[in-house]
């Protein structure tokens, strides 16, 4: 097979590193870029650069944010006695869309999966435990933690692991109700489903 000019090959290779992009899609994207006017590709390049420069992880909840702490953690109107734990930042967006939840969040950035080498150390669990620690008065601010990990094998195991870890600290631990199909991903839950899952949450 003949190779393309080196810059083209390099672009294809970079695209191939992206999740869900195989060789053919990478090739198609590269040729699309080649045909696109300069100013349009500049906008794309700027958007990528800006997101890398300006977006950081919130030092409290690990959400993606352009201010630290993020707007949820910094907001005086959010209920600080309740934390909703999700796997990924886009799960947080799905819950926020219900407009019914006014507590705080914690993003784990994944779920336990031994076959992929993901254990508790690979997830943002340590700083979750820190958030639950009582202050000098001996009174903890957080009263309830909602586990909103995905309703699949890995999400369940993660919720189960966290519940065992957190319940001894005296915090109420609840799990969102699964009106969702087995093996589901919260990413595909609509607002109504998500709202129901939250209101019907149960203690574990």
């Amino acid at each position, binding site marked *: 097979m003949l190779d393309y000019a080196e810059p083209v090959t390099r672009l294809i290779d970079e695209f191939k590193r992206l999740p869900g992009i195989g060789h053919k899609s990478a090739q198609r994207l590269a040729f699309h870029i080649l045909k696109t006017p300069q100013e349009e590709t500049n906008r794309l390049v700027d958007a990528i650069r800006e997101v890398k420069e300006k977006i950081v992880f919130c030092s409290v909840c690990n959400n993606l944010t352009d201010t630290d702490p993020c707007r949820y953690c910094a907001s005086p109107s959010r209920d600080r006695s309740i934390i909703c734990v999700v796997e990924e930042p886009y799960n947080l967006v799905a819950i926020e869309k219900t407009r019914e939840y006014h507590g705080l969040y914690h993003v784990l950035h994944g779920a336990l999966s*031994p076959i992929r080498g993901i254990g508790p150390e690979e997830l943002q669990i340590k700083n979750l435990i820190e958030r639950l620690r009582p202050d000098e008065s001996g009174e903890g601010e957080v009263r309830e933690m909602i586990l909103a990990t995905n309703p699949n094998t890995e999400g369940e195991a993660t919720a189960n692991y966290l519940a065992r870890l957190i319940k001894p600290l005296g915090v109420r631990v609840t799990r969102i109700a699964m009106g969702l199909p087995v093996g589901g991903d919260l990413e595909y839950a609509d607002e109504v489903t998500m709202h129901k899952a939250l209101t019907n949450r149960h203690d574990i």
Partner: protein
Amino acid sequence: MHLRTIEAVNFRNLAGSVEFSPGLNVIYGANAQGKSGWLEAVYLLATTKSFRTSHPREAIRHGEKEAILRGSVARGSLVKEIQLLIAETTKQTFLNAKREPMIRYLGNLDAIAFTAEDMQVVRGAPDARRKFLDRAIFGIQPSFLGTLSEYNRALKQKNALLREASETDDPLRFLDLIAPWNDQLITLGAEIHSTRTGYVDKLRERLSPGLFQHETIEIRYKSSLDGKGDLSDYAGLLRERMGLRLKNEIAIGYSLVGPHRDDLEILFDGYEIARFGSSGQQRSALLILDLAQLSVYHDVFEEHPIFLIDDLDAELDRTRIEILLNYLDGRAQTIVSTSKRSIADRYRDRAATFQVQSGQFLSANQRTNM
């Protein structure tokens, strides 16, 4: 239900389409001409699984990207078009030319197959018998597919931890990590146990002993926890056994307890069929099990799935063939393949017969009085 027509595109060496009779259909042709391929196509269209390969993509014709199977299924006067598209990494299901989720597609056409590979059920190791049970259950309860795949996924995750734990100097730190997976294995395992035992009870009621000879046949779901405690509280017992065996599991590096180690006990005239049965008895036993599965299906849906027999005369003698076909006559649409023209000739007066050459149907001799 019956399959009226099937068409194959880029599927193995098959080409064209065929119209089946609602009764008995005999497909004959020399070896490697595609007769088994057509049977496989029917089974795949019905169940989305192949009885020849665990990777249906292997059936895509060389050099092509996807294979398509299309069929029309009749229930009384209602006719539905179903279609299965097999690509390298996906399978897509369609009903009346529209995408249909797999879980709703299944059940539009159902099939039970008697093949040489299935002889493992009465000859081979426990996993072949578990597969037989699970496949039969999917037919009447598609959601069981989800339960089983979640269980297998959790088991894989637990085994990854056990393997890692077996290789470290500090296996104790793995206990907290294993516990969440055990919890899921217990919930899902209890569901699998009760579903399988429930199905075996139904199957037992529908066994027709003495169908082929003067044999007796008994079946029992043999849990790996038999004799270890109170099986009526399966979840509790499984939890207890997992606790007791955890050290051994860590030492050996994989899971030792759960329904993935269960078996279906099949006794023929009081003896375990796989170890003591003659090959004739094994064939009879498998047929009796298949026909019981057909009856259980009928109990649930008040209709029969279609019955497929691959390479009829290779596995069955003339007497068994006669008894079997008489049993199926008037019950289920039956499609059989054979390499012998003489067999097709023998049934020409009561069956639609088809000759296959190079993957295509050459001639159809259909009886009209069916």
